[in-house]
């Protein structure tokens, strides 16, 4: 894929959450983006790094992850096509979490000095980037609530709803009956649940006709009921045109 279409991925993401003019789009198209391919489970940016670039996810699935002192991993959020997971690195110099691929992914790196000078000259783009990090924070808040307070059944349904909704919004899933590209272990780390309990919960969701499972893949079977089961309300995703993604 050429860097032109990488720019379009970035533009579509920013347009989903903010209002940009044609002149802004031209500026965004001019950003030099260095693309790289990664296998699943590779670290893109490490906690403690002082990156000189931020990356836009062109294709694939990325997780922000933190490790406890004794080495347990918590995935604190997912990122899909168009997202700019470490955009906060533009202002916070030391990374406070690690970003890793959860599936094979293509990533586009953008220089911080370029992004800074664009923000100084184009306030609407600066506002759009700001909104992007605010929406990321809203998702983190939802995840704290999900992992901290929802029981396993609702928690699991919620995270599946979010993933499906977001993948659909970026055109990576055609309908609600789609494979969710995530491993058992990653799902457990995102839910803060043991693998045994994740399996138990997935099978419970399946027996209620909400999902289908085969190997490590999960498919949504009954979207309205899965939404209800997952206590899922899309407000926190702050899409400007939420109906378009349903």
């Amino acid at each position, binding site marked *: 894929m050429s860097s032109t279409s990488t720019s379009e991925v970035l533009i579509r993401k920013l347009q989903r959450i903010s209002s940009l003019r044609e002149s802004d789009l031209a500026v965004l198209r001019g950003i030099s983006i260095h693309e790289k391919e990664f296998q699943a489970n590779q670290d893109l940016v490490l906690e403690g790094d002082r990156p000189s670039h931020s990356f836009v996810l062109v294709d694939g699935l990325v997780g922000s992850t933190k490790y406890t002192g004794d080495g347990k991993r918590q995935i604190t959020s997912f990122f899909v096509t168009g997202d700019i997971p470490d955009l906060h690195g533009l202002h916070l110099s030391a990374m406070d979490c690690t970003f890793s691929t959860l599936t094979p992914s293509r990533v586009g790196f953008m220089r911080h000095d370029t992004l800074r000078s664009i923000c100084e000259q184009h306030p609407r783009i600066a506002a759009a980037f700001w909104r992007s990090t605010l929406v990321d924070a809203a998702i983190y808040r939802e995840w704290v609530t999900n992992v901290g307070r929802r029981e396993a059944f609702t928690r699991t349904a919620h995270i599946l709803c979010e993933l499906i909704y977001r993948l659909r919004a970026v055109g990576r899933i055609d309908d609600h009956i789609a494979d969710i590209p995530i491993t058992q272990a990653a799902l457990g780390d995102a839910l803060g649940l043991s*693998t*045994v309990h994740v399996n*138990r919960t997935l099978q419970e969701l399946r027996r209620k006709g909400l999902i289908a499972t085969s190997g490590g893949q999960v498919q949504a079977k009954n979207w309205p009921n899965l939404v209800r089961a997952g206590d899922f309300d899309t407000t926190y995703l702050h899409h400007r045109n939420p109906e378009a993604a349903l």
Partner: protein
Amino acid sequence: MARYFFDSGDPNHVFEDEIGIECAGLEEARRAGLDGLKDLTKDTLKDFDGQQLFVEVRNENGDKLLRLSLSLKVTAMDDRLNERL
């Protein structure tokens, strides 16, 4: 690595694991089973005296290898309360 299955539940209802987990050996399966029992307890332990919960580990041939279980015991420390329980 081998695939282990973790059936779980209480004496009235057994939930059969159809997915399973790859573990390096019985020791790892035992740790996975214990973590599963902790989560099961958090989700399903109700306030009733004598409730039992368990996780049973079996291998791909269906041989039962381990059973991890616990039961709730509620005891009032005052005799008058005990009559009401």
